[in-house]
C-alpha cells in the first residue's frame, strides 16, 4: 500500500494517519480486505483544498479495467478536516466494500449514472447558477464576488489593468508605425461579470491615449462577451462612459468563434478572467503505468436527502426528478420561487460525486480534449510523476482553441486564472473541483494548455499575478509564434 501524505492544513494529519493505517491493517487481519487489495491501494490524506466540495470524508475510486477480476478500490481519499473521532473505521469499511451497484436509498439518492465529470449533472447546476445569478444572490443576500477568496476579483486590480493597457498601447503604436494598424481596433473581454474590469480598462486606455495624443480611442471597438444576457445587462453601468464603442455579445466561452467568426484574425487583444476555471472539465489518472478516465456519479447522501425531503415536504425518491426539472426550468418550476431556490441550494450543498476509474484502453471512443492526441498526452506524461491524477481541462482547451483564431496575427490573449503549470503540483494538493457559492471551480491544467497551444502555433507563457500578495492566480499570455 502506498500512503500519500500532504501537509495542506495548519495541523498535520499525523494522528489521523496512524488511525488510517491501524484501521486498514485490522481490516486486513479480519479478512475484510484482501491482501491484493491492500497491496495495490494508494491512500491520499489531507488532499482537500476547497472547503466546499463534492467529496465525502472517505471516498474510494474503483478501477474497472480488468473484467475478470473483482473490482477493487485503487485509490482512497481521506479529507482529514471532515474526520470525526471514532467514525473513520466505519467510513473506510463502507467505501472499501461498496461496489458499483446503487446503494440503498437510505444511504444515497443517485442523480445520474457514471460518466465523465464533463457530462455530469454538476455542470447543469453551474449553468443554472450563471443564468439565474440574480435570483441566487437575492436569495442568499450576497453577490457572487463576495464568494471569491478575499471577497473580490483580482481581475479588477488597477495596476494590473493599467499594465495591460500599456502593453496594448505599445502594440498598436508599433503596428501604426509600420502602417499595419487596422482602421477598427477590436478588443474582446470574455466573461465580463459586473463589467468592472472593462470599465477600468477603457478609462485607462482613454486617459493614456489622450496623454500621448495618439487618437486611438475613437477607433476602438470594445466587445463585452458573456454567457448570460443578464450578466451583460449588469455590466452596462460600469462602461457607461464608453457606450458608443462598446458592443454586448452573448457568447459561449467554449466557442467564441461561433458568434464572432466575422472577426477571425481581427481582434488585437482578448482577455478572460476566472472563466477557464469554471468550464466543464474531467480528470484522468495514471496508476501503475495505465491511464484511467475518472468517471463520476452524482448523488445526495441519504441523511441530506431525508432532511431536504422533510424541509421541502417532498418524498426523497422524488429528488432526482425534481432536480432535472429544476435544471430545465429554473427555480420557478417548484411553483414558489423561494421554495425552488431553497431546494436548489440544499441539493447543491449536499451533492457529492462517487468515482470510478476506467482504463482508457477500454474506452475506444474516449474523447480527449480538442487538440490533444493520445500520443501527445503520453509524451507529456513522460515528464510527469509516475502515478498522478490530473485535470484534462477539456473546456479550457476547447475555449482556447476556439478563441485564438480570432486574434489578429500580432494580437495577444491574456487569461487570468488558477493554473497548474507543472504536473508535480498535482502531488502537492487538491486542485478541484470545488464549489464556489453556486458554481464549480477547478484549477486549469496549464501544461496541457501550453502543449496544445504550441502545437497550434502559439507561444503560451504563465506569469504569477504579482499585483496582490498571496494571490493564487497566474496570467497566461499568448501570442502567435513565428
Amino acid at each position, binding site marked *: 500500500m502506498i500512503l500519500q501524505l500532504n501537509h495542506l492544513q495548519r495541523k498535520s494529519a499525523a494522528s489521523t494517519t496512524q488511525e488510517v493505517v491501524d484501521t486498514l491493517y485490522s481490516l486486513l487481519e479480519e479478512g475484510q480486505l484482501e491482501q491484493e487489495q491492500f497491496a495495490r491501494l494508494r491512500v491520499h490524506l489531507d488532499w482537500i483544498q476547497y472547503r466546499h466540495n463534492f467529496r465525502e470524508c472517505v471516498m474510494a475510486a474503483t478501477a474497472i479495467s480488468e473484467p475478470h477480476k473483482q473490482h477493487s478500490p485503487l485509490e482512497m481519499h481521506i479529507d482529514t478536516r471532515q474526520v470525526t473521532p471514532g467514525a473513520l473505521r466505519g467510513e473506510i469499511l463502507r467505501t472499501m466494500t461498496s461496489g458499483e451497484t446503487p446503494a440503498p436509498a437510505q444511504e444515497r439518492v443517485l442523480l445520474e449514472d457514471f460518466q465523465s465529470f464533463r457530462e455530469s449533472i454538476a455542470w447543469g447546476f453551474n449553468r443554472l447558477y450563471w443564468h439565474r445569478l440574480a435570483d441566487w444572490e437575492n436569495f442568499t443576500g450576497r453577490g457572487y464576488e463576495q464568494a471569491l477568496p478575499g471577497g473580490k476579483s483580482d481581475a479588477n486590480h488597477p495596476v494590473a489593468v493599467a499594465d495591460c493597457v500599456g502593453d496594448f498601447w505599445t502594440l498598436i503604436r508599433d503596428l501604426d508605425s509600420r502602417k*499595419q494598424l487596422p482602421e477598427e481596433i477590436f478588443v474582446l473581454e470574455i466573461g465580463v461579470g459586473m463589467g468592472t474590469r472593462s470599465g477600468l480598462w477603457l478609462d485607462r486606455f482613454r486617459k493614456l491615449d489622450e496623454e500621448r495624443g495618439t487618437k486611438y480611442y475613437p477607433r476602438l471597438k470594445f466587445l463585452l462577451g458573456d454567457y448570460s444576457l443578464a450578466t451583460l445587462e449588469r455590466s452596462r453601468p460600469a462602461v457607461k462612459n464608453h457606450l458608443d464603442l462598446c458592443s454586448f455579445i452573448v457568447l459561449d466561452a467554449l466557442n467564441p468563434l461561433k458568434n464572432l467568426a466575422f472577426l477571425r484574425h481581427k481582434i488585437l487583444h482578448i482577455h478572460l478572467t476566472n472563466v477557464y476555471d469554471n468550464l466543464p472539465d474531467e480528470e484522468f489518472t495514471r496508476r501503475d503505468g495505465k491511464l484511467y478516465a475518472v468517471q463520476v456519479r452524482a448523488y445526495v447522501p441519504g441523511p441530506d436527502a431525508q432532511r431536504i425531503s422533510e424541509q421541502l415536504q417532498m418524498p426523497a425518491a422524488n429528488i432526482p426528478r425534481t432536480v432535472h426539472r429544476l435544471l430545465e426550468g429554473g427555480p420557478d418550476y417548484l411553483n414558489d420561487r423561494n421554495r425552488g431556490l431553497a431546494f436548489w441550494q440544499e441539493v447543491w450543498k449536499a451533492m457529492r460525486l462517487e468515482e470510478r476509474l476506467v482504463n482508457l484502453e477500454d474506452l475506444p471512443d474516449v474523447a480527449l480534449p480538442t487538440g490533444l492526441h493520445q500520443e501527445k498526452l503520453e509524451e507529456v506524461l513522460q515528464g510527469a510523476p509516475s502515478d498522478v491524477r490530473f485535470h484534462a481541462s477539456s473546456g479550457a482547451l476547447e475555449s482556447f482553441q476556439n478563441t485564438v483564431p480570432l486574434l489578429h496575427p*500580432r494580437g495577444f490573449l491574456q487569461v487570468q486564472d488558477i493554473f497548474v503549470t507543472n504536473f508535480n503540483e498535482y502531488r502537492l494538493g487538491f486542485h478541484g473541483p470545488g464549489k464556489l457559492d453556486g458554481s464549480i471551480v477547478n484549477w486549469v491544467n496549464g501544461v496541457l494548455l501550453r502543449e496544445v497551444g504550441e502545437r497550434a502555433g502559439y507561444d503560451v507563457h504563465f506569469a504569477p499575478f504579482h499585483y496582490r500578495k498571496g494571490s493564487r492566480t497566474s496570467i497566461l499570455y499568448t501570442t502567435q509564434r513565428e
Partner: protein
Amino acid sequence: MTLPILPTTVVGSYSMPGWLERLKTEFYARRISRRDLDEIHDTAVKAAIKDQEIAGLDIISDGELRRDNMIDYFAERLPGVQIDHASKKFHYDFYDSKVLGKLPMAPLGLVEDVKFLRANTDRATKFCVTGPHSLAKRIRNEYYPSEQEFAMDIAHVMNPELKAIAKAGAQFIQIDEPNYSGFPEDLPWGVKALNALVEGVDAKIAVHICYGNRYGKPSWEGSYAYLLPGILDANVQQLTLEFARRGGEDLKLFRELPPRLELGIGVIDVKTQAVETPHLVAERIRKALEVIPAERLFILPDCGCLHLGRDVAFGKLCAMVEGTRMVRKELKG
C-alpha cells in the same frame, strides 16, 4: 505545356497527414532510419500527386511533403548555413539557423525532387522554391553587412539550382515570398534578389505573395497596395496572390497589370476547414474576371494546403476544379 483556359493548380503544399507528422518526429528521435523516412516520403508524395490528379488539377506539385516547412528544407541545403538541430520541438517549427561566412557555391539537391515528380505524373508540373527575401528574413545573418546583401548571395547560390531544376523538366517554377507582406519596405531589394534568383532560368516563373500561413494562420494583415508599382520590376510571368480569405477588395489594384503578367488568384481559403462550394469558387473567379481577362488568369488556393485535413484539402481542390469548370462553360457560351 497545353493547358485549358483558367488552369487550376495548387500553391505548393498538400495536406500533411497526421501519421506523417508523427513519423517525422520518430525520425528526429532516431527511432526510424533516414532510408525508411525517404521511402515514407516517396509514398506520401505519390499519394499527394494522385489526389491532385483525381481532384482534376491541371498542374500538379509534389505536395511538398518532404519539407518540414518552407524555410528549413532550403536552409539545410544551402551550403554554409549552420543549423542547430536541437532547436525545434515540432518538425514544423523553424530551426535556429545562421550564416557565419560567405555562402559557398554548391548544389542544393532539389533536382531529384523534380525528377520524382515528373516520373509520377503525366500532367503539367510545378515546383516551388522559397525566395531569397523570405530565407534572409528567417536565417540569422551574422556575416553579411545587410539583409539585402545576404539575400542577393542566397539568390546567386540558388540560381544554378533553378536552372538545373528547369533542365530536369520543371516547366513551371513558383518562388514563394510571403515575407514581402510583413516587410513591405523591403520590396525594392526583395525584387532585386528575386530577379537575381530567376535570371536565365528557362521556365515559366511565378511569385507567390500571401499574408503568411504559419500553422494555418496569417502572419500579417494589410493591403496588397504596397506591391504596386514595385512588383512590376520583377522578371516573372505570374503573380500568385491570396484573395479568398481576405475578400476580393484588392483585386481592383491589378486592373492595370501589364499584359506580360498573369494573375494567379486564391479562390480557396486554406485557413478554415470549411469546404467551399463550387458556386462560391465560381463567384470568386467571376469577380476576378472583371479585372483581368481569362487568358491571363490561373486558379489556385490562397496558399499551401499543409494545415488542412486530407479530406478537407481534397474536398476544397475538388470544389475549386468544379467551380472553375462552371466558369469555363460560361466563357464558352
